[in-house]
């Protein structure tokens, strides 16, 4: 989630309140305070509230929440004669562009930092790392309308930001730091998106870099915004958030005509809120007037439109309001969570343990009764531990992770006994005897099953111990079994047996093969057992996911 830095002086000036009051109330509108510094507070806002990614946006919300100024902000958009043409050849490259003009800004250093902050946050959250949306802010007075957004060849050149010489688009993608970061978004396209003015001066090479020509400084008075992207809705969301932020900072917005469409549209959208539905969801008893009052605090325009209806004007920057319940949530936040009494409902239901976990509990009782200590190894393992060290062939049913994060975790375990041996290796310097067990999920093909494994190591650990333990387990589980000669290479030939239930192999026990012990670097003999619980209790077979 994006972290927004709020400088106290700027915040206090825009907000009309003191820093302590603001900091105390910030978590109540939905944020995590990351750190409180000497001259600023760093706050993490939710990804849904893109309108709070600037000091201006936070101040606007806090003025309402603190009751300094409630209701919606009205955004005036005057026409400018500026037009934009969008070329057809961008249709499959980066077809959408939003634009607006902001006049008479008074950009001090803090306002510029805030503007860069909101731009960066929008790039990540709405723009998905500039792939979906990228933003450019320009000094309008350095260029001449009308503007043109079109697909240019990579040989086109201009002076990019932070450079003092002309570079071709190809060179920018190769050499410029921003080019290296973002060229992957467009480099395979037949043409490159480019914005130029009437005289062929380049404003921007979206989504990579602006031109040095239109760099915004403290002396910039009039700004041109460009927002390009692949998703029209996301482009317009970013444009509205930018415009309203700059208006709150003191600018005047003028519209731009893009291929005949006048933008930005900063008018609110309307929704009728059903008062009983809202009260039912929240468990409250608010009247229509009360709900309207609370929503005004949350900077909506709201008025009673009948006994059970509130007409709500949703500010254009609230891209997160997709559904009526999103407005209900703001009613709860505006009322204050601490003012909503927690209350248990009268839902009647009886609790039931899941049979898989009930069985696991019973097995834990038996194993601990037999003197075994429970361990909790990971479910992610690797081929080496699972098969190579066990002298076993890799299980074709094993599920491999496509992009493992380390060599230790490349597949989902198919057995548990190898993980117990790996634990005995780690604990080999500890006192003997060591008797450990684990029961839990394994995955074969696409199905999740449960297995149980036990391992015992001490100077006398042998086949007889494994047999006696397996026998006790099966007896306590109430399952009749017979034994059959096992050919499992993880055990010593002639010292291992398969547990047969109704003619089916359901597990194996015996003395671990010394070759396996060598591979695990274990010095003492080990007796081991592994049982397939889903074969013992076929009723509990998991359904395919």
């Amino acid at each position, binding site marked *: 989630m994006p972290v927004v830095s709020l400088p106290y002086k700027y915040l206090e000036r825009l907000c009309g309140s003191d820093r302590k009051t603001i900091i105390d109330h910030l978590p109540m509108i939905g944020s995590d305070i990351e750190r409180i510094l000497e001259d600023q507070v760093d706050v993490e806002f939710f990804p849904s509230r893109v309108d709070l990614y600037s000091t201006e946006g936070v101040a606007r919300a806090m003025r309402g929440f603190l009751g300094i100024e409630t209701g919606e902000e009205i955004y005036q958009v005057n026409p400018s004669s500026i037009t934009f043409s969008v070329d057809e050849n961008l249709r499959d490259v980066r077809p959408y562009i939003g634009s607006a003009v902001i006049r008479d800004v008074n950009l001090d250093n803090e306002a510029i930092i805030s503007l860069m902050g909101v731009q960066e946050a929008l790039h990540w959250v709405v723009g998905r790392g500039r792939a*979906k949306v990228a933003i450019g802010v320009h000094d309008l007075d350095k260029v001449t309308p009308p503007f043109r957004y079109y697909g240019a060849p990579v040989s086109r050149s201009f002076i990019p930001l932070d450079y003092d010489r002309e570079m071709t688009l190809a060179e920018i993608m190769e050499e410029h730091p921003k080019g290296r970061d973002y060229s992957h978004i467009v480099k395979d396209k037949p043409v490159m998106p480019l914005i130029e003015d009437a005289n062929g001066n380049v404003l921007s090479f979206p989504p990579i870099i602006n031109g040095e020509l239109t760099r915004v400084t403290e002396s910039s008075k009039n700004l041109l915004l460009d927002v390009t992207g692949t998703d029209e809705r996301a482009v317009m969301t970013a444009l509205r958030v930018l415009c309203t932020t700059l208006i709150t900072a003191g600018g005047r917005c003028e519209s731009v005509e893009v291929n005949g469409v006048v933008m930005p549209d900063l008018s609110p959208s309307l929704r009728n809120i059903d008062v009983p539905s809202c009260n039912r969801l929240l468990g409250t008893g608010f009247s229509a007037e009360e709900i309207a009052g609370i929503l005004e605090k949350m900077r909506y325009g709201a008025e009673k439109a009948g006994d059970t209806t509130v007409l709500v004007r949703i500010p254009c920057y609230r891209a997160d309001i997709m559904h009526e319940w999103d407005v209900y949530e703001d009613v709860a936040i505006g009322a204050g969570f601490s003012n909503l009494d927690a209350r248990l*409902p009268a839902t009647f*239901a009886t609790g039931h343990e899941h049979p898989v976990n009930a069985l696991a*509990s019973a097995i834990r009782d038996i194993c601990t009764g037999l003197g075994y200590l429970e361990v909790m190894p990971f479910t992610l393992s690797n081929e080496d531990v699972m098969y190579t060290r066990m002298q076993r062939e890799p299980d074709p049913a094993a599920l491999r992770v496509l992009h493992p994060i380390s060599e230790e975790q490349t597949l989902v375990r198919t057995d548990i006994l190898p993980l117990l041996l790996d634990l005995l290796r780690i604990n080999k310097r500890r006192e003997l005897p060591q008797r450990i067990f684990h029961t839990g999920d394994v*995955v074969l093909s*696409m199905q*999740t099953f449960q297995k149980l494994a036990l391992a015992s190591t001490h100077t006398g650990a042998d086949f007889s111990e494994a047999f006696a333990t397996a026998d006790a387990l099966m007896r306590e589980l109430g399952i009749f079994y017979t034994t059959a000669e096992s050919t499992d290479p993880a055990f010593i030939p002639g010292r291992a047996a398969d547990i047969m239930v109704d003619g089916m192999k359901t597990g194996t026990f015996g003395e671990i093969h010394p070759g396996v012990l060598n591979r695990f670097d274990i010095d003492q003999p080990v007796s081991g057992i592994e049982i397939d619980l889903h074969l013992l209790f076929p009723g509990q077979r998991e359904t395919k996911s």
Partner: protein
Amino acid sequence: MQLTLNEKRLLLELVKKETTTPEEMGTILDRPADSVVQYGGLLSQKGLAKVERTVTTTLILTGEGSLYLKEGLPERQLYNSFSASTSIADLNSHPHAKIGLGWMKRLGWVKIEAGKVVKTGDAATSAIEAGLKNPDTAPADVKKDLLKRGLVTEEESVRYTISITDEGRKLASSGITLTGETGTLTAGQISSGAWKDLSLRRYDITKRPRPLWPGKIHPYQRMIDEMRRILLDMGFTELHGSIIQGAFWNFDALFQPQDHPAREMQDTFHLAGEQPLPKGWEKVRNMHESGGETSSTGWGGNWDPEKAKATVLRTHTTSLSIQHLAAHPEPPVKAFCIGRVYRREAIDPTHLPEFEQLEGIVMDTHVNFRNLLGYLKEFYGRMGFESVRFRPGYFPYTEPSVEPEVFIDDLGWVELGGAGIFREEVTSPWGITCPVLAWGLGVSRVAMLRMGLTDLRELY
């Protein structure tokens, strides 16, 4: 004074003998001599007897010594190998020529004349030859030669003498009863009643026993079981399901937009293969694209069914909750799940690629947001977190959303889990018309707080 039976028997014999050896006493008491030394030691600790330890050195023939005692020393064997005289060259062919010639000369048995070895007389028995027969009584210089030639070695032998003290005599004269002491009771002694006449040996209660390690349930599992117990007590039904999930249930059914970064390979473990889409998937598509039949706008754009078929290791147990709801759309539903979930994170003190998550859901006709807060307070209260407070939260699949915080001494308010009411975009495709309260929390986080751990890796 507490004496064992053996100490008593030894003391009574010492009264008769005054001074004795362990060997002699061993025969009388029918015990090994070593044991007698031990009993004597115990008596001497109590001042009833005196044990003297003397060390004597004896000379014992080495293997070489024994051989020469039988076959004669090298110089004798060499002397006997020729008659009156012989050439040095001839003599050198004898195996003992080197040592033998030197000693023959030193003992005056032969002399060298013009390259020939000539006997001087009868060669009487030498002192060393005599010493080899009785090394212990040999003169000191002979002993030295025997040791130097490696024919004998010194061996220390320890001898004990045990004698009674005045105090011992006094105790013995005051009368000692020789009742046997019993260590381990036998079945016969117990059932026959013979135990009534036995003197049961007392044990040293200050000596620590050999440690025993019991079989135990893992402390983390115990805490998981405690949470399960609480939720079962509160009337919740337990869910359990596959750790392999289709992206459809893990993300799409929960209204996670398809371009959300958390879905990517960077954050989620992807597996080979595709999962089929369930019946009714089209409604989920409509929900994403346009909000379906609800008041929602949806995310817009095109929803790609292929992307929803990807196979992943579940990133949350919510994938099980929504499947349970889809299968049980009628109220009431109260269910919970504690299960392992997976995130593609490198292992460090606060991150593991797999960890446990708890999740509870309640669906009923009249449940509401305040009820959700009620469940949270009740659950955390039963977990031992008395003070709970709430602040707004954000989760893609709940609205309203809330982040509960609990108060912990030394740490203050700590965020613990997340909660909310499932969005209508999530429930509507499955015909669910009642609100669904949902909350989840990281079980390992609770465990760390309760056990006071700072490194997540210590848990497993």
